[in-house]
């Protein structure tokens, strides 16, 4: 029983990371209607920045995380400005391929700077593990921080989008970009802001992910990126609460699948659940059904 609870907590922790990454996917999708395949690699870049600043340069972890968030935010905006903005009117596939190009680019930049060897990431969390039920259930400091960080970020983000002016502009653009522009919303600025927020969250997710799973290569971001993308679709792409629910569920399914069914099949189980959900609800758990007009 304690084993099960421990797996569940680990699942929620991994799910929190997925949820943070999925937020980046889902916000960009909701507003720019594009699949940003390079998002996973922004996570990787963020982790490398923390690795350089904390492990190599010896800065305190908080400073490293701040620098990482700043670098990723700028990176996200620059990518949007250079690679995606000129293609705003182009077909979806073209933007997808460009995003894949950006993904290759980031991976190879990291490969050139840091080499292909796995870097071991020292955890930035210094909280001691929490021991519950007389030592039968031990929750690591990383897990606690990850879950708390995810909850805080979700609350702040929801408040920001509901109650601030830029946040409401984001809602308006995702509802109808053309109409929002006519109402005086700066669409380009709003999209850039979305990329900035998404990339900042990716940096945080990267730090949390690498604190729990401390091996860092130029391809570290790819698989969590795909999984988070699945989480976003799972919850209904374009929906922020959906990304949260999808991420958490996905994390739990993956960890439980790994523990009780087969560690090699864990990914396959995650994908299979996605397929089943989409067959029952074709737009995800919280996705909106779009009526087709003739």
């Amino acid at each position, binding site marked *: 029983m304690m084993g099960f609870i421990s797996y569940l907590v680990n699942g929620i922790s991994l799910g929190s990371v997925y949820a943070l990454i999925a937020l980046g996917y889902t916000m960009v999708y909701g507003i720019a209607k594009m699949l940003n395949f390079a998002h996973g690699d922004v996570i990787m870049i963020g982790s490398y920045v923390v690795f350089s600043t904390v492990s190599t340069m010896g800065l305190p972890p908080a400073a490293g995380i701040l620098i990482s968030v700043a670098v990723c935010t700028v990176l996200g905006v620059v990518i949007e400005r250079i690679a995606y903005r000129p*293609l705003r009117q182009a077909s*979806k596939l073209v933007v*997808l391929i460009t995003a894949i190009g950006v993904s*290759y680019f980031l991976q190879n930049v990291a490969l050139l700077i840091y080499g292909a060897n796995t870097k071991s990431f020292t955890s930035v969390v210094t909280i001691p593990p929490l021991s519950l039920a007389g030592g039968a259930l031990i929750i690591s400091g990383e897990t606690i921080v990850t879950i708390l960080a995810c909850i805080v970020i979700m609350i702040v983000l929801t408040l920001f989008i509901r109650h601030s002016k830029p946040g409401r502009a984001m809602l308006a653009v995702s509802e109808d970009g053309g109409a929002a522009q006519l109402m005086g919303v700066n669409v380009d600025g709003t999209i850039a802001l979305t990329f900035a927020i998404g990339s900042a969250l990716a940096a945080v997710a990267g730090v949390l992910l690498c604190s729990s799973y401390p091996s860092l290569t130029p391809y570290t971001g790819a698989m969590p990126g795909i999984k988070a993308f699945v989480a976003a679709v799972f919850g209904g792409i374009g929906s922020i609460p959906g990304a949260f629910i999808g991420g958490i569920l996905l994390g739990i399914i993956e960890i439980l699948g790994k523990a009780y069914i087969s560690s090699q099949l864990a990914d396959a189980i995650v994908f299979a659940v996605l397929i089943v959900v989409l067959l029952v609800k074709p737009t995800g758990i919280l996705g909106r059904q779009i009526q087709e007009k003739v």
Partner: protein
Amino acid sequence: MRQMKTKALSKQTRNNLVTYGIVIAAYIAVEILMRAGMVSSLLKGLLVPLCIYVILAVSLNLTVGILGELSLGHAGFMCVGAFAGAIFSKCTMNAIPVAGLRFFLALLIGAAFAALAGILVGIPVLRLKGDYLAIVTLAFGEIIKNVINIIFLGRDSRGFHISLKDAFDLGLEPEGEVIIKGPQGITGTPNDSTFLIGILLILVTLFIVLNLIHSRTGRAIMSIRDNRIAAESVGINVTKYKLLAFTVSASLAGVAGVLYAHNLSTLAAQPKNFGYNMSIMILVFVVLGGIGNIRGSIIAAVVLTLLPEMLRSLNDYRMLIYAVVLIAVMIFSWSPKCREFRERYGLKRLLGSKKGAKEEV
């Protein structure tokens, strides 16, 4: 009127013949260069993979360009074909000593199994639309790869044994043989793939795809792509034609898989060869070559496979350059500003000013 019709038809046939001609000419050119000893061993090793990529790109173009659905799981079907073909070849290595016949049968079996996988995946998947369909095909591709990685298959005098745990679990007799060793895959597949077979398979693929496109079925498929609701309301069976295109595309990917399996002595399902990265790479060929343009797919597959090899002297920078080229090509061909620039200073305008003059009037 009649004359016009034959003329229109002949233009189409001519176009197809040019496509076949390009492939045959490329084969002859490579053969001549090879006889003259001007082809490096590196390039020689690339010839069969080039054929594989061309087949994959042309077959994916059927799904993406003609059917208009984004599939990110093409490598999964290739994986099914590769393993089905390799198992067949390995089991019949002694029973059918003629390599050509055995390889031909392996191709048919690989194509059949991939087509079966295409139908099984297609029935649920094709109900979804757009990006949802893309992510589900990606999911299926990953599932296929993961499942193959845990299968152990052995054979002895009592028949086949399958286990999902390890080789000992098969309970083989001492003289039994393990065919699939889980993550290590299949070793010792006969090396039957040659450049000539690859070229012949490209021609067969082109023949199937081009004839499908220009048939009544092909027009029905394209009408679904252009407007599903309109197509449905004139009585086109949308599900049937979608599934048909998807299945043909999958089975051709299976053919490429068999070619791939028989080009290497070890076949294992890894993220590198059968993961979503491979599917994405093929998609890049299709989009860069021009969505729906078969000839473009062939050229893009060849150029984009050779480009990183040509840049090999640049070592670590080659994939970086590849990425930059990819982004630059996309922006250059699709950004409104660049399009305007090209229209103003493009080759067409400079060479033939007739069209420009007409537009001005």
